[in-house]
């Protein structure tokens, strides 16, 4: 059974993990020994892309060619970008359903950049384990909407991966934590990452991880803390992007240092333009600067509790996830809110990836004792008279879930019916997010009100909406035209796959096939040479093994070739022993065969 891998595609760092027996393991980078891959991509003028630490090093000198925290832009349209981001990122001026960055005369979308991290992680795993990585589970913030989830799936596709499931980050963390501690009960997961915040309330019982409610803010995280701290340095009205980037890097460093010290230095230096600024910052100043950010995390916590029907006191355990939860103020506020000390034993940077690794094991069938029951984070509805949102699926409904609506025509001979789907909690559709416009076409011309079209809205286990329709009068499936409001079209994804970035590395399976065939060649030649000395009893078996291996060599399954090489090895072992005993050494090893030839 093909192994499935779990990937945490984070705002700040990305990781890949798998289930090794019972234990999830995050695969480290062979150079640094750390499983963290900084989610940063730097585009060089020659067309090559750096990712990870190398990209981070280039960030200060080439800030407009280096994209960090691209996750914050996933699923967004050009119009969604905030002003402060327009100054810091090279946003392409084209308006459209997908925001793009303009770099070196080329427009790059967020899913393409995320795909670079996925590809890098994929290769890391393939090299570490010697097997092909095809099927994955990717984590997303629980509060990610439909467009953001689609964008994540697009990234997987662009990286040549089959995304079996999107898993919500707090749920993955709960999984890693719950299995590690064998805990049962009501658990709150407070996940404050680089760019997103999630709070999920779960019930863990008998290996079932049931999400009761989830809430969050997909534009709130450690990055906002860095920004608030950097603002303490007066950088002027329109600072050079290099100054801005250097200031953010300095702020991040200071923030981290202030977790263990009472004071730190904020030092910004850009020698190329002779800019230098420095100041001391105390923990107290940090807390004053970031207080607003931390406060903003508490409202979603209140809402999640309310939706779950529980009070803070009723929660048995609180788990902290995400690098930003290392900040002492965050821990203090969370402890105050829930009235208990939160758990921090598991590495907040790795716990989501480890949980993804476990879920990957569940999906590949390797683990059967665990089940995640997650929920849709935001309500779904359609537009009705007066621009009012009519809810079809409530937030926090367990997924997969489906709802049906009956549609009909309002005019005689009307041949099409359409409706729009929105996601959000507000009363009016204009305050919610429009997902797509649907049209049922080619309807039979009938009097008004006679057609009966049943539309099924299914939110699948990924939290993504699927819409199908049936004509109840004929019982037949009705086709639907979908016009999504956001996201890449299939044609765009195809085009991107064609023009993918130059990583300058060959396809792994091609390489594995070449190696397997070389091995096969070697053993076949050696065995054929030795065959005349075979005894009648073993000859038939050896010839059969040879035939099977030859057939496999003509195909492309490198695993099968390897298996049959081993089989032939076994079948010809006694023969080989005898030949060696006759002192023709290493007759069946590749090298000696070449020499003998």
């Amino acid at each position: 059974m093909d192994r499935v891998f779990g990937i945490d595609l984070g705002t700040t760092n990305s990781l890949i993990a798998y289930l090794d027996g019972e234990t999830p393991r995050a695969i480290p980078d062979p150079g640094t020994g750390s499983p963290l891959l900084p989610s940063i991509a730097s585009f060089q003028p020659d067309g090559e892309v750096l990712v990870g630490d190398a990209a981070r090093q280039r960030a200060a000198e080439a800030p407009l060619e280096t994209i960090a925290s691209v996750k914050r832009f996933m699923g967004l349209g050009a119009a969604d970008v905030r002003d402060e981001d327009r100054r810091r990122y090279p946003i392409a001026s084209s308006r459209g359903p997908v925001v793009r960055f303009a770099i070196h005369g080329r427009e790059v979308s967020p899913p393409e950049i995320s795909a670079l991290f996925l590809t890098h992680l994929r290769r890391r795993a393939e090299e570490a384990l010697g097997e092909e990585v095809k099927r994955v589970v990717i984590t997303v913030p629980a509060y990610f909407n439909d467009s953001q989830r689609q964008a994540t799936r697009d990234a997987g596709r662009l990286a040549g991966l089959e995304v079996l499931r999107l898993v919500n980050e707090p749920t993955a963390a709960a999984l890693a934590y719950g299995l590690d501690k064998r805990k049962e009960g009501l658990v709150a997961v407070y996940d404050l990452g680089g760019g997103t915040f999630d709070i999920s309330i779960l019930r863990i019982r008998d290996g079932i991880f049931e999400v009761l409610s989830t809430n969050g803010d997909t534009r709130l995280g450690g990055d906002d803390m860095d920004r608030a701290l950097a603002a303490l340095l007066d950088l002027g009205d329109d600072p050079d992007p290099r100054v801005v980037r250097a200031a953010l890097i300095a702020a991040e460093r200071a923030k981290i240092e202030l977790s263990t010290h009472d004071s730190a230095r904020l030092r910004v230096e850009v020698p190329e333009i002779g800019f230098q600024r420095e100041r001391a910052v105390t923990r107290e100043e940090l807390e004053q600067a970031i207080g607003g950010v931390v406060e903003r995390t508490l409202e979603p916590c209140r809402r999640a509790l309310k939706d779950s029907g529980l009070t803070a006191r009723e929660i048995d355990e609180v788990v902290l996830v995400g690098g930003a939860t290392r900040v002492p103020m965050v821990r203090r506020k969370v402890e105050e809110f829930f009235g208990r000390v939160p758990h921090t034993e598991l590495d907040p940077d790795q716990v989501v990836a480890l949980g993804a690794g476990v879920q990957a094991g569940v999906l590949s069938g390797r683990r059967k004792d665990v089940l995640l029951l997650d929920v849709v984070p935001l309500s779904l509805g359609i537009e009705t008279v007066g621009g009012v949102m009519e809810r079809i699926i409530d937030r926090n409904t367990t997924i997969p879930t489906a709802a049906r609506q009956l549609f009909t025509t309002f005019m005689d001979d009307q041949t099409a019916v359409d409706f729009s789907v929105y996601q959000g909690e507000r009363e009016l559709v204009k305050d919610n997010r429009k997902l797509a416009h649907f049209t049922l076409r080619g309807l039979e011309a009938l009097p008004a009100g006679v057609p009966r079209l049943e539309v099924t809205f299914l939110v699948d286990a990924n939290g993504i909406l699927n819409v199908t329709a049936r004509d109840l009068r004929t019982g037949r499936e009705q086709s639907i035209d979908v016009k999504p409001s956001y996201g890449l079209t299939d044609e765009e994804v195809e085009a991107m796959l064609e023009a993918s970035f130059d990583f300058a590395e060959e396809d792994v399976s091609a390489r594995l096939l070449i190696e397997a065939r070389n091995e096969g060649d070697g053993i076949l030649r050696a065995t054929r040479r030795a065959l005349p000395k075979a005894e009648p009893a073993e000859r038939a078996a050896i010839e059969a093994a040879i035939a099977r291996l030859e057939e496999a060599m003509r195909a492309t399954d490198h695993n099968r070739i390897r298996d049959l090489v081993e089989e032939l090895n076994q079948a010809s072992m006694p023969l080989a022993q005898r030949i060696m005993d006759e002192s023709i050494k290493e007759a069946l090893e590749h090298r000696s065969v070449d020499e003998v030839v």
Partner: protein
Amino acid sequence: MGDTSTTGTPQARAGAPVARCWSCGEEQPPAPLCRKCESVLPLSADADHYQVFGLPRRLSLQPDELAQRYYDLSRRLHPDTHGSGPAEAREASMTNTAALTRAYRTLRDPLARARYWLELHGEKLGDDNRVPGELAALVFEVQEKLEDLRRASGPARAARAAEVRAELEALEARDGELHERMDTNFRQWDTAHEAPALLRELRSILSRRAYLATLIRDVRAALEAAPGRAEPRP
């Protein structure tokens, strides 16, 4: 010979719907899992919530038993459990789990279950917003107090808020009584044979409770908006 509808459940000659397992071929009454080989069978769109759970139709249900059944079925039906199985299993698991989710939401909540029960018996709660007769006096009183609260200012607010809180308690007490009546009604379905009378009573209780629920929600909202809020619920 029966014809196969789009949902793939052939109609047997006797008229009761029959499902055929895509894996082992066994014909059986519709159920989420094959009784012979345990493969996931896609439930038809009109399977009722009790069929999804494999439970007999009863209005009284033990919440713990229902929850346990839900977890057991989830384990066997959920798409994650069939992540590596054949396409038929994966599709059927998606359909069935969505049906299970909906069935659980409905059956778990006594009010939702009761409304569903009415539907199963061909009845429906009307959409009308008329005040149920017996509540008229109480409702009038509450509206008056709410109006007083809205118009009050300064120290008078606290006093008016206290009065509204008293009304809220009265409303909740009334709802509590109706809840008890509803419980009794539930139990009687198992033993009694006067379905039409029970149905009428259930309908009446539900429509009054629906009215009260809306009113209680409005009163709570009004109190939250006013300073001197009610104590947070324990």
